[in-house]
């Protein structure tokens, strides 16, 4: 690994006094240390944010929950407060392996912003908000504006993610699915999340769907969702929605993990599985 200097600030003020353009933020290190080691990234400073209390906590917040950026996947899995967020729990359970989940954080997951990252599709259907902080104050970023490309976020220079707010959506059900090459540990070849509001009541029902690895960032199509909402669904409706999605996604043919056809099939199966079984 190329040399760097390590800092462990104890407050946000101290963090912002040392955070410059040649620094990397270190949370769990499960992406950053791999990239530093391979030489994909190099920085003069590595700033460990795990000593700062503002990055912690899984707590109820007005009509939802707020998860500190440094909370690990293991903490998310073990949190009772998050029990209602089924898709998030499912995603956290699939993530990496036991030792990785003990270190990897949710903040690191979205900041690394890989196209199949575990939390991306989930935060996308929940329409989560990312609480961002910089030297000059805080701002809220809707999750759909947060990931802007492969390994790219809309964080401005000198900004960090403090926490993520997930609204609790009354009378809703959420689902998560992923495929990987091996049953043990592997990154998702494809993943998806579906959120259904008022599942038992077709006329008042709303559908949200997000798919990973088929575009640079989690893919949602609100037009398609609208066509699937507020009615009892027929197989034809689901098939038409699927065709529409296929026209708009852009899975890379060069992906080593899964072919575009495999990813499309995964979307189709997931939609049939969830939407096909709604009353």
């Amino acid at each position, binding site marked *: *690994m*190329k*040399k*760097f*200097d*390590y800092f*462990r600030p104890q407050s946000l003020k101290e963090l912002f006094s040392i955070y410059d353009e040649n620094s990397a933020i*270190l949370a*769990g*290190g*499960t992406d950053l*240390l*791999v990239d*530093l*080691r*391979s030489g994909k990234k190099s920085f003069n400073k*590595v700033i*460990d944010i*795990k000593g700062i209390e503002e990055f912690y906590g899984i707590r109820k917040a007005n009509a939802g929950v707020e998860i500190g950026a440094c909370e690990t996947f*293991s903490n998310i899995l073990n949190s009772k407060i998050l029990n209602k967020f089924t898709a998030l729990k499912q995603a956290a359970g699939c993530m*990496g*392996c*036991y*030792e*990785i989940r*003990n*270190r990897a954080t949710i903040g690191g997951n979205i900041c690394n912003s890989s196209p199949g990252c575990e939390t991306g599709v989930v935060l996308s259907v929940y329409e989560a908000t990312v609480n961002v902080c910089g030297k000059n104050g805080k701002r809220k970023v809707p999750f759909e504006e947060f990931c802007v490309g492969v390994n790219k976020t809309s964080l401005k220079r000198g900004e960090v993610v403090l926490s993520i707010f997930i609204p609790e959506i009354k009378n809703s059900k959420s689902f998560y699915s992923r495929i990987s090459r091996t049953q*043990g*540990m592997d990154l998702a070849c494809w993943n998806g999340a579906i959120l259904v509001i008022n599942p038992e009541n077709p006329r008042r029902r709303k559908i949200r769907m997000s798919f990973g690895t088929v575009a640079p960032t989690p893919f949602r199509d609100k037009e398609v969702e609208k066509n699937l909402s507020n009615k009892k669904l027929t197989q034809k409706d689901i098939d038409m929605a699927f065709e529409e999605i296929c026209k708009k996604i852009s899975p890379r043919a060069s992906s080593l993990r899964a072919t575009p056809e495999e990813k499309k099939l995964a979307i189709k199966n997931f939609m049939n599985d969830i939407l096909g079984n709604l009353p």
Partner: protein
Amino acid sequence: MKHKINLNVNGEKHSIEVESHHTLLYAIREILHLTGTKKGCGEGECGACTVIMDGVPVRSCLVLAVEADGKDITTIEGIAKDGKLTKVQEAFIEAGAIQCGFCTPGFIVAIEALLKKKKNPKRSEIIEALGGHLCRCTGYEAILKAIEKISK
């Protein structure tokens, strides 16, 4: 940048000097010379470098040595007490779950960490805890046999 750090490794206190970019794995193997912990992939994929840090198993190749300052670390050398092998170690030997032995410290340490949290884990729970551990020799059959013995 050099850092003076304190580690409590297998119950013994060590005060050592490390560079910012040194991993905990490097400190354990190259500074403390505890070579039971193995370096396989060096990037979190294989599990050979697993150690217990403050009660939880982590991949020491993905932890900086400075990050471990002040922490309790258990490596494979600290598992057997007073030369007496644990139930897990015995089970691995009896089942012949070791060929070259390179992956074994990681497997054993991961299972011991689970046993600290849960006295009688189910077979499925042990398998879940070992999800990210690779073995290139045994084909896992013998390891599964050892797990049967442990979960009995």
